């Protein structure tokens, strides 16, 4: 089945290959890195890529290859955590707004629109800077700017679904609101939100890299790709310091976007074609 899909969709298969490769690397990273990602060697700083250091060494002699591999863990975790947390928050918020309806819905949706009205990256920068740079604060900032997207989708799904016959049936059987919401409406509404979340995964990784490029991720010496690119900008004469983590961001973001795009094409009836 998977093979058939891949045969028919070039971009989707590239996405799958690239992403699974990164997932394998992230899982195995400590086993396959040739050096410790923290080991400094000032005698061999700024070494160009060679058979000893495939991606060269940075300003304090750390192996860039090992750091790029280890960095995949942080990027994947950051992307996943943001998407999962934001979609949970968004689903609950949007679900409640849609289910209750009326004035509460109006107020809740205006609040979420207020968050959306801010330029995302600037709001995230403000939050991350105000709380102080750390992985958790950056993730929190990303969740804060991301959840309204899911809340809106969830709300519209809930509003559509709550008129269905099976909901009416449950109501006439005397089911509580809690039961109706969690047993009847929620399972039938999460689909589009989950698809949206998959689509956003690449964007979340990009945003995270952007924030850590600006110095708002975890403190050094954490091997974050964004921070490593920033280090490469500082040492511009040594192209390899910034290029390889940059390529890592590029491949991961493009890979997840290929998957997401193909999924959307498949799920959107207007664009539907054979996967």
């Amino acid at each position: 089945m998977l093979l058939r899909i891949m045969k028919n969709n070039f971009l989707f298969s590239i996405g799958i290959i690239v992403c699974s490769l990164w997932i394998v690397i992230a899982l195995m990273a400590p086993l396959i890195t040739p050096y410790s990602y923290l080991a400094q060697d000032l005698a061999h700083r700024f070494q160009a890529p060679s058979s000893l250091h495939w991606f060269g060494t940075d300003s304090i002699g750390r192996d860039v290859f090992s750091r790029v591999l280890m960095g995949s863990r942080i990027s994947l975790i950051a992307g996943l955590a943001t998407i999962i947390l934001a979609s949970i928050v968004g689903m609950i918020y949007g679900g409640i707004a849609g289910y209750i309806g009326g004035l509460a819905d109006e107020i809740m949706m205006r609040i979420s629109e207020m968050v959306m009205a801010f330029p995302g990256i600037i709001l995230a920068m403000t939050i991350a800077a105000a709380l102080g740079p750390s992985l958790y604060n950056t993730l929190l900032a990303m969740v804060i700017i991301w959840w309204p997207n899911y809340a809106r989708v969830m709300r519209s799904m809930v509003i559509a679904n709550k008129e269905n016959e099976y909901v009416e049936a449950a109501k006439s059987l005397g089911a509580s609101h809690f039961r109706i919401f969690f047993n009847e409406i929620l399972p039938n509404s999460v689909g589009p939100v989950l698809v949206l979340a998959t689509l956003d995964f690449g964007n979340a990784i990009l945003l995270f890299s952007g924030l850590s490029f600006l110095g708002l991720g975890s403190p050094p010496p954490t091997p974050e790709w964004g921070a490593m690119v920033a280090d490469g900008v500082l040492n511009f004469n040594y192209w390899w310091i910034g290029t390889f983590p940059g390529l890592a961001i590029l491949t991961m973001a493009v890979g997840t976007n290929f998957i997401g795009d193909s999924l959307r094409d498949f799920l959107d009836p207007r664009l539907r074609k054979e996967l």
Partner: protein
Amino acid sequence: MRKNLRVLVALLTCVLLFVVGCGGSKDAATKPEASDGTKQLIMALDPDYETFDPGLAYEVYALLVLHPVYDTLMQFEDNLDAPIDGIAESHEVSKDGLTYTFKLHKGVKFASGNPLSSQDVKWSVERSINLKGNGAFLTDGIKSIETPDPDTVVFNLKEQDASFLTKLTYNAFGVIDSKLAMENGATNAPDASTSDKAKLWFDTHSAGSGPYVIESYTPKVEVVLARNKNYWGEAPYYDKVVLKAISDPGTQLMMLEKGDIDIAFNLGPEHVKQIQDKPGIEIKKAQSMTLTFLLMNRDPKIGGPIANPDVQKAIRLALDYQGMQTIAGEGSITPVAPFQVGFLGTLPPRDPKTAQDIEKAKELMKKAGYEKGFKTTLEVATLAVEGMDLPTLAQKIQNDLLQIGIETEIKTSDIMVALDPYRKGTQALSLWYWGPDYPDPNTQLAFLPGNPVGLRANWTAAMNPKLVELGKKAAVEVDKAARVKNLEDIQKIMDEDSAFDVLLQHARHYATRDNIKGTDYIDLYKINLKNVSAK
């Protein structure tokens, strides 16, 4: 088709990013217009000046512009050991060290043609005092100024000050053409800080007696200095000096290689390597007066285990100074105490090969009761000091401290955020930098216990009374030999017991076209533009 298009777009984007990344920035530099025979010097730098009002300017590059424009009573020539007479022909210090008498050169005229008299000196200094600008603290010790005759100025001080002659080299003491300045809204009245309206005029005009006048100033673009035809001293070589504001070192380097500029002033150690063998370029290295140091809080409530003096000494012994000098670039050194090499009485720097002693550091940790080590936070501002990235150095320190069991977590923050806890003294362990306020060891006494920087580490006067006493003596001692002895003793004590570990005294890297002479670095002026000439 859609699919192919998307692949194409993706590929094109990659190519574009690559091209943008590699292209570098081309600055619209113009060739010097030497067609009409005017001799013109063009220098590129990353300036910080805010104003050219001599009563207000107190920025790093202020004196680069103001020294050749405004004469001062005292000035420096080649080194910062001792100031020499500037517009003063001679000077005399009374026995009690409280009265300084200066005889001015006779027949000096300002660029405007007005004669220069002792009244102008008095007026200028009074204006600086009353403007209350950032550099006004340099005038704090003055009780009164007398002008017995047009060629004599007498300063009466409140108390002895060994650094008074050095302070006189600053633009706060620059002699202004008071007649011209008053015509343009300047005043020396006690309420000058509000009633003086000349600041903007001073930005694009000048009223000095130096070899150059300010011809024009376009913020963020350039300052143009032109020859003062009424200059009383030996005329400078160049007719015009253009100081171009170019913040990117890569662009400075490119312009220098092309010959568009004569001096590229803000290069890092890594940039200099690129032009090592290029013909027509001379690389200059100098000792900067900027220090990078580690602050270790003495208050146990803030510092925890860091507050223990034995731990602090262990940290001093555990660090790899040679490695840090590699990171900071060639020419950087490690002074023993917060006193820069180049100042009067500074001890020779540490030998980086032998300064690290892990065994002894471990013993001290054991003595302090932290044999197993501890965890702490190392705070650092995200910025570069003389071309060296501070967070990079923090990672090196983190690595070194692990060897004696101290596990540090690096906390980075923006300089504007980090300054507040630093000044309030609430950081346990932090990495900072320091540039002297004026070129005299007295400015470094701020690091002593009980003094402003010392207190940022909660190092109170009671913790080392002997050091405090020596510091007070050194600040006022007028006898040079006795002062040197005092300063040396201070450094020896601070090598044993100090809340600071001086990691680096940085090097300054810049480059000139090889036909340019007289561009030696002097920290106060950066380059003394009066002396620059061409072969």
